């Protein structure tokens, strides 16, 4: 469970990096389209071609941000209930909360462009929250292994399998 937990948390953090790359690619494509004499208007935008060669970037950003990350973050919260590490639930919940905020901001950007300032900064907060979640559980796993090694070394049978990380 701990391995799954940290795997999911790293996935969220990694997917945010994909998001940053995808949106930069998309806007690169759009600017390239304009530089070559193209015109970006609502009609082009709604026919999913405003990104030019970077259109795939918009699609990835929408799919990963609108579906993949929320699902993984949700799975992280569910898995956190089976991981006995102090703070695992808290950091998973925090990650999901930030993701929910991020998706809401993303859909609201068209109406209120200034929200883009928070959308970009909040992305970094998600990376931090997901990384802290992953690192905490990893540290607990390493600590457990160390104490288990020590326990087997001293032939002590009393080591708790449910050790709680300090």
């Amino acid at each position, binding site marked *: 469970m701990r391995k799954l937990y940290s795997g999911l948390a790293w996935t969220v953090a990694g997917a945010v990096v994909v998001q940053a790359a995808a949106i930069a690619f998309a806007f690169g494509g759009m600017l390239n389209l304009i530089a070559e004499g193209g015109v970006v208007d*609502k*009609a*082009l*935008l*709604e*026919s999913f*071609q405003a990104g030019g060669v970077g259109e795939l970037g918009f699609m990835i950003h929408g799919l990963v941000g*609108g579906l993949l990350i929320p699902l993984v973050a949700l799975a992280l919260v569910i898995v956190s209930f089976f991981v006995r590490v102090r703070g695992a639930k808290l950091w998973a919940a925090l990650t999901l909360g930030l993701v929910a905020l991020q998706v809401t901001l993303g*859909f609201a950007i068209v109406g209120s462009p200034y929200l883009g300032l928070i959308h970009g900064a909040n992305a970094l907060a998600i990376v931090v929250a997901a990384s802290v979640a992953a690192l905490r559980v990893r540290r607990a796993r390493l600590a457990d292994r160390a104490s288990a090694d020590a326990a087997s070394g001293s032939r002590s049978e009393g080591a708790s399998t449910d050790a709680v990380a300090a």
Partner: protein
Amino acid sequence: MPSRRDLLRCAVVGVAVATALGAGALAWSSTLLGEYSVMGMGSGGTTGGAGHAGHGGQGAAAGGAAEASGLLDTVSVTDLAADPDRPADVRVELVARQGTVDVPGGRSIEGYTVNGTSPGPEIRARQGDLVEVVLVNESVADGATLHWHGIDVPNAADGVAGITQDAVPVGGRHVYRFVAADAGTYWYHSHQVSHVQVERGLLGAIVIEPAEPDGRIAAPTDGSPLDVTALLHIYGGQHTLNGRVADERVSAPPGSTVRVRVVNTDQGTAAVWAGAPFRVVAVDGHDVHEPGEIEGQRVLVPAGGRVDVAVRAPDRGAVRLHVGGARSIVIGDASAEASAPPVRQPSTTLDLLAYGTPEPLTFDAASPDRSFDYVISRRFGIIDGRPGNFWTINGRMFPDVPMFEVAESDVVAMHVRNDSGDVHPMHLHGHHVVVLARDGVAASGSPWVVDTLDVHPGETYDLAFVADNPGIWSDHCHTLPHAVDGLVAHVMYEGVTTLFTINGEAGNRPE
């Protein structure tokens, strides 16, 4: 060796996960639509008890009689047709094909053609003509239909797959017949898998010329084209004007007026502006009453909407009319194109709510018989097994959206509010609606009569129309992917039924 406690915990987790997955699968499968009829879709858009009660009061006797006679009084959508005995004045055969669309001036794309080109041939009829169009589907694999966007055709000719007909399969044909009652600029397009077929070219323009020539526009005397169509469409990311990736030139004698019929067949709003004053003489096929000159403003044409503008050829040189973001038409002395350089798009938009001068409406909109809300919003959910962030109507997600039930000759009030973050070009089939007010501000110009209306985020529109065309009519967003994502409701007349279904054997998928 795992302890008993570990085994117990594993068992509990296993049962919990299995239950959660089972419940999830059940919830997911309950969203699958399968084959369905719009007849079975929800009701309950009605608001404003006074209006509705008033209707009940005045029509109680008639309503009771209709209910007593029950099914005997019902009429099928296929029977709501033009006079079958009247010979056609204009007869056209349109052959739909799937394949490569040649885009002159650009690169060709894979899509659909009508009679070998896209856009298909422009149909011209005179007001009062009976138009008969035969659609032949030669090779459109998903099947095809023709919808007459903006023309208030009888319901049988509306061309919506799964509501008024089955999609015409490969090798099949279908006859559309209607009287061209209202002069104006319209267009035709497929209403089967429309978000793909329209975007990829199964469309064309249809112009109904007035029975009496419009005195405001000089009639072509010497055969010069003083009445031109500007059909906008994006093919594979290429902005085209009448199917070509190129601007156009219209030779017009100095001082003459050219009518440009702008048809926006795209999925989003198009802007129209010029370097010289011009007038909007018609919107969605309805003349504007006493339109004033527009200078330093742009006109926005909703997706699916049409605007006819009158441009005066200058005494010397030419004037450039920008249609859509990328294309333009140079009008006047065609050899003097250099005298009409591109002009920057104005940032202020012509407000049609206060354009032209008032004129009495043909009906009393102050005391509607029915009053409906159409509130657009958005939330996460699952439609037909597909998760996503979907549009809602009055807080409900497709197919649980309202059915706007009306009786013939009702005056219907519609209150459209956009609580989402996107523009929605709302299109009602078979009727024209008059805009009474926006955000509580009453209309103060010429009657603003539309079939396609851009509703921007946060806006509220008070609309009214007369239920004078019995049938079952879609009332949907014409940014067609939005319709796929649930932004579709219907206006249904009492006593009208359809036997056509969606997702059934005929493969009808109107959106």
